[in-house]
């Protein structure tokens, strides 16, 4: 630098040919958030992989006999206890001599039903609380947000443990789903509230009010539909969390009774013979993990697709 008196300038060569011009394609359908997101997602192999997993698990939950003809809990021979794979029983046998593959297939139903119902409960409560708090503001916001803080301050699996211990006589899919969803909604409510606060500022909300639509009507017709994107992401991710919660509660012994087939119950029962027959534990664990993984991947893909900033960060 010090001795140099001359500087060299580099100039990029100019290419001959036409210069690209932005063209407005009037004939094409106008783009929107959902169309962009869909276009983004369907190009990603991960999306299709997780969709296939989710579909297979759903099919298992609805029609387990499509996958296995072996009865999962009758016909168990104690002579097969902890047995390895045999003809017609590809994954071997549990301690009770039941077919591991059949039990894993049938276990999907509990996870999926509890997970779905708990998520629906949590999302609906979260949507209502978050939307009202964010849209109306003022004392209602203060009240609902404090209620949300209270629920947020109790780890929801622990809350569900209390609920299921207290209502030990009434254990079924719905109480379990209520125990999980009834305490897991607070984080959903926070997300919805933040989004509604953002959307509330939009011009179309003012336009809707100026055109004479009531506040509540505006909230239902314009604000919520435009605030739904983050809710979709949270819902997918909480489905994964609810499935884990169900399995954890079953494992702790406060899920559905031990006669109900569920991955959590099977894992819990298999731990007693872990040293001699680890496979009875490993296969339901794999099923559980893959299902949760599929929902988490789906949730993250949807989040990335719906958030242009996240898309840029990839």
């Amino acid at each position: 630098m010090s001795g140099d008196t001359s500087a060299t300038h580099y100039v990029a060569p100019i290419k001959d040919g036409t210069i690209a011009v932005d063209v407005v394609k009037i004939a094409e359908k106008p783009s929107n958030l959902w169309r962009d997101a869909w276009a983004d997602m369907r190009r990603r192999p991960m999306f299709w992989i997780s969709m296939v997993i989710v579909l297979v698990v759903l099919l298992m939950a609805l029609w387990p006999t499509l996958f296995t003809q072996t009865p999962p809990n009758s016909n168990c021979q104690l002579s097969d206890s902890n047995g390895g794979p045999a003809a017609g029983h590809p994954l071997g046998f549990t301690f009770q001599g039941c077919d591991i593959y059949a039990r894993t297939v049938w276990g999907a139903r509990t996870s999926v039903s509890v997970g779905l119902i708990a998520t629906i409960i949590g999302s609906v409560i979260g949507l209502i609380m978050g939307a009202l708090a964010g849209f109306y503001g003022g004392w209602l916001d203060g009240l609902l947000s404090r209620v949300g803080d209270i629920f947020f301050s109790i780890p929801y699996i622990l809350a569900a443990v209390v609920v299921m211990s207290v209502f030990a006589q009434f254990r079924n899919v719905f109480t379990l789903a209520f125990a999980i969803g009834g305490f897991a909604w607070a984080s959903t409510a926070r997300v919805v509230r933040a989004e509604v606060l953002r959307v509330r500022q939009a011009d179309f909300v003012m336009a809707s009010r100026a055109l004479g639509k009531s506040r509540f009507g505006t909230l239902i017709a314009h604000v919520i539909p435009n605030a739904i994107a983050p809710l979709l992401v949270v819902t997918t991710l909480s489905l994964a969390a609810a499935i884990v919660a169900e399995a954890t509660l079953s494992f702790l012994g406060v899920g559905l009774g031990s006669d109900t087939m569920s991955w959590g119950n099977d894992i819990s029962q298999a731990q007693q013979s872990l040293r001699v027959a680890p496979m009875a534990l490993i296969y339901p664990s794999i099923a559980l993990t893959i299902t949760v993984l599929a929902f988490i991947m789906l949730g993250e893909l949807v989040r990335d697709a719906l958030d242009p900033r996240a898309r840029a960060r990839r």
Partner: protein
Amino acid sequence: MVGYILKRLLQVIPVFIGATLLIYFLVFAMPGDPIAALFGDKQPSKQLHDALVAQYHLDQPFIVQYWYYLTGIFRGDMGTTFSGRSVNDVLAATLPVTGRLAVMAIGIEFTLAIIIGTFSALRKGKIFDNTMLVISLVFISLPIFVIAFLAQYFLAVKLQWFSPTVGATNDWGDMWLPAIVLGLSLYAVSMRLMRGSVIDTLNQDWVRTAYSKGLPRRRVIPVHVLRNSLIPVITNSATNFGVLLVGATVTEGIFNIPGVGNTLFQAIRQHEGSTVVSFVTVFVIIYVLVNLVVDMLYGLLDPRIRYVR
């Protein structure tokens, strides 16, 4: 800063009252006669029954009963377990054990999360980054009891690197396996946050300024980037503390560590409703306090937080 602390303390009070009220209400709604449950198959005499009802204030309305319970908590009386032991005594014996486990687990979690998260961010989109992202997804999807059993089977039973259970001797050195399990179950979320945070920080103006001042990478990354990227990871660890508490319950149960979590785990398994409620309350109180402390640290770390609102 004093104002900020006072404000946060005031905000905690309704949350604390609401949370204990909620749990207490659940217990109040519990079907069955709690006094009859105390006697099992035997029938208590009418006088004894009435005396016990009066002793436990069961003849009072809900809100009065709750008041006795709440003032009990503030006097430091957490109730008694199903077997009649005072919850305070149990806590005195078990909290240090759980504390050791939690400190080790958080140490493992943060070390892994900060190192792997930073390297992933610096190699964004490369093979290392993608591998680590996939691994972290798997760890997020693995429920903690599955991690615990897999570790117990492969590392303790097969390879015999660790003892499969902990038991009565539970010094720092004995807790490696459960601490690794608990740390791994927490690490994935923190690592992904760290990665995202470092990527965001790398794009900040002050990092460009630091580089253009001629500072070397080995100074810019630790001093300018890491320090500023840590805040989201630390705040998340407060919200994540609930996951830690549930994780500690499961881990201590599986590895037979005599901590608070194990007490809760055994109470759940033995269907001792009242003990479950006492210890869940303890966990909720710990959770609320930890969040309060982290919030204050957060205010200390980042002056901007104190002046908002």
